[in-house]
């Protein structure tokens, strides 16, 4: 069990302006679960793309079981026994489960045989899945099962998993871990990419830590504390957000029986959602991706309207109002998708400041945009939120994820909202930026605003919110105070293990 399966030596890959991987070397042994740990932007994705044949290294070598390994394309990697479960981008919504699986295989069997194989594997590993279903109708967890089964059908020697738990409830995570341990015990090596320290400590045999493209350490995670791992990963320490004691004021936002049909073929309908948020309070809403988060944000921001009485601001019905009117009254929001939803990618930061700030910041006079004033507002946001950019004339897409996120959150915060609704405020953002954003949200609440924070990151919700609820298939669970809430309870609120069963580890 100690034979080296894959050896990486001196892998380097540079993109213009950034060295994604700089002389990275480590070994993955047969049958081990090896963690690849690092912040967003540390170079984890580039590294696994090189192993999977999607990206060619500038220099460095890979050896698979002693033989040179230079996959020119994913097909070659798959043929050599390397399989990968992607975080995004590898399923086709309109195609069936079986078709999706077939597309990821080199020589798929006939459709009928494939369907049977899918059923067999899904039973063996406790991942129930109907081969005939259209992938677009599956939940996030089920979609991941499609990816995993696609890999397992090829009997991989190395299975790469990219941030697999971000779409799972805590219970589902446990089941996934059982599956992975079973696989490892059967001799499959697993390269497990994550930035979640506790997971890695409980699951992985070894860990390689990347920071800014360089390997900074290899360790045995069970022997290190989460704090030590965090320090290796982040390097410098930064301040964790401080939750101050806040007096709660009147009810600001009052949602009663909010129901909306699904917006598209693969959207989620909202079902009878009710909650209240008080001045100075942060309500955290958790849940696995695709359970109504986007739809709820759209209903609260005014992108989709409802009956007037369903949504009230300080007892005033606002359900029929669009985003502009709601903003005028102080209901602001920050959607999950930075590029294309919260900000227009090709427009400058100044123009993106006008996007939501036009009226509330008085950037218009007689319908004409005051560009000088708009630029001033953009500069304000850049300065107050430490957005790293050459200036307000820069296009939004030129900013890194973390910087753009600080910009779009800052843009709303500086408009002094009475109610702020944000979805995934720190998704894909480095730790320092995430901490800054969370602190800004806490400060805003301290000033008396009411906040709704929708997030799939439970740690984040525990850190900032006063009360917690979970979205599950468009329904909102009971809302409970955060203090004293256990992980198990949270998992159950999120819908437990859905329809998964515990893997038959005896097999």
């Amino acid at each position, binding site marked *: 069990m100690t034979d080296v399966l894959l050896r990486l030596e001196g892998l380097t890959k540079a993109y213009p302006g950034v060295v994604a991987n700089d002389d990275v070397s480590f070994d993955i042994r047969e049958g081990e679960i090896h963690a690849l740990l690092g912040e967003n932007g540390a170079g984890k994705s580039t590294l696994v793309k090189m192993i999977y044949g999607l*990206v060619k290294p500038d220099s460095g070598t890979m050896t698979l079981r002693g033989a040179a390994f230079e996959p020119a*394309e994913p097909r070659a990697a798959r043929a050599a026994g390397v399989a990968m479960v992607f975080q995004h981008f590898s399923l086709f919504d309109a195609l069936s489960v079986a078709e999706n699986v077939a597309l990821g295989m080199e020589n798929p069997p006939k459709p009928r045989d494939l369907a049977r194989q899918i059923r067999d594997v899904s039973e063996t590993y406790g991942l129930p899945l109907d081969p005939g279903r259209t992938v677009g109708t599956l939940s996030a967890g089920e979609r991941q099962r499609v990816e995993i089964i696609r890999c397992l059908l090829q009997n991989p020697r190395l299975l790469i998993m990219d941030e697999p738990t971000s779409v799972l409830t805590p219970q589902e995570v446990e089941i996934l871990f059982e599956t992975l341990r079973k696989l490892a015990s059967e001799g499959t090596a697993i390269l497990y990419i994550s930035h979640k320290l506790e997971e890695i400590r409980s699951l992985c045999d070894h860990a390689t830590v990347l920071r800014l493209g360089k390997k900074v350490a290899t360790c045995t995670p069970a022997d290190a504390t989460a704090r030590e791992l965090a320090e290796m990963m982040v390097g410098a320490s930064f301040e964790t957000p401080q939750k101050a004691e806040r007096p709660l004021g009147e009810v600001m936002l009052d949602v009663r029986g909010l129901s909306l049909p699904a917006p598209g073929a693969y959207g989620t309908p909202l079902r009878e959602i009710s909650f209240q948020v008080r001045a100075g309070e942060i309500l955290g809403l958790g849940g696995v991706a695709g359970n109504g988060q986007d739809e709820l944000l759209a209903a609260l921001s005014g992108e989709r309207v409802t009956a007037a009485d369903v949504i009230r601001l300080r007892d005033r019905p606002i359900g029929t109002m669009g*985003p502009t009117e709601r903003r005028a009254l102080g209901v602001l929001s920050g959607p999950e998708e930075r590029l294309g939803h919260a900000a227009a990618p*090709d*427009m400058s930061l100044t123009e993106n400041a*006008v996007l939501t700030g036009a009226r509330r910041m008085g950037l218009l006079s007689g319908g*004409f*945009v005051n*560009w000088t004033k708009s630029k001033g507002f953009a500069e304000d946001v850049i300065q107050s939120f430490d957005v790293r950019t050459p200036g307000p004339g820069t296009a939004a897409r*030129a900013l890194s994820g973390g910087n753009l996120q600080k910009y779009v959150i800052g843009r709303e915060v500086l408009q002094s909202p009475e109610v702020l609704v944000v979805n995934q405020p720190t998704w894909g953002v480095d730790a320092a930026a995430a901490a800054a954003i969370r602190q800004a949200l806490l400060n805003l609440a301290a000033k008396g605003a009411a906040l709704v924070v929708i997030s799939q990151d439970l740690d984040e919700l525990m850190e900032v919110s006063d009360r917690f609820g979970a979205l599950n298939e468009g329904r909102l669970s009971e809302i409970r105070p955060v203090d004293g809430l256990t992980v198990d309870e949270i998992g159950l609120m999120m819908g437990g293990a859905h329809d998964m069963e515990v893997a038959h580890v005896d097999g």
Partner: protein
Amino acid sequence: MLRLEKRPQPSQLWTVVTPILAVFLTMIVGGIMFALLGKPPLEAIKVIFWDPLFHEQFAAYSRPQLLVKAGPLILIAIGLSIGFKAGIWNIGAEGQYIIGAICGAGVGLAFYPSESVLIFPAMVLAGAAGGWAWAMIPAVLKTRFGTNEILVSLMLVYVAQNVLISVSSGLLRNPEGMGFPGSRNFKQWDAAHNAELIANTGMHWGVVAAFIAVIGAYMLMSRHIMGFNIRLTGEAPRAARFAGVSPTRIVFFCLGLAGLLAGAAGLFEATGPAGQITGAFNAGYGFTAIIVAFLGRLHPVGILLAGLLMALTYIGGELAQLMLNLPGASIQLFQGMLLFFLLATDVFTNYRLRFGKKGLV
């Protein structure tokens, strides 16, 4: 190996350089084409681009034609460009142009032979209204049912052409025209004639309208929140909805404005340079204006320049037909190629060309 790499933001320089580069490439490939047709390539290029303005014998006639041809192109292209900015693909300007001309002419002819000064303004308004109404068909269908505006607006061109043939030999036919199809000649009816305003310049009311449209569009697109909303809708539709922009309003505004300007252009043409409504009075300006809009980078000032350039190729093409016996269709191809080369070179606005090892397949 060559590969493309996305620029962090669009290059300002290349935005200006690409149209010029495209013109040069078109000249080169066009020259080759002329050579294949057995014509002297350099001579042909000179006849097309230089002679209309500076030829001793012909320039006096052809120079005023520049504004005559550029006027409708610019007017229509301005309207189209605003829609294109919003991602609304109205390609049926030719139909809106025809219907505008028919409506405006119809309103005028209803008062024949009145010499009231109100006749011409009323005709312009009716022309604009006609074009607007024709453009409202795809607008309503798009907003109400989600019907694709590209196909509807284009289909309506063929419908408009059938209407045109019908009215020019029916409803609007000149009763004194001895049974020939075609309306009365507006050049012989002062109250309705869109005459040259300054002798030998080609300047008529349609050209004035085009200049006003350029200035108006510039103000709208760069200063007004409506212009901002239009750009936002085109670049990031989801962000536009998040900002509170109503997609329906944008569709109505953009299609309506384009129809309005195309309709007015049609009326100016019918009462001016063309002189009458006939089954073939429309010269395809509605389609060429699409090229003008792109060549002008969808920017009002760019469109002004592109319109003049395209007008030049029209006149130059006619001259080349006259002097070199160059087939008229080669100019149409020439214009199409111009658009193609522009689209091809446009890649450098958003991407950078890199030499080096290919990082990916």
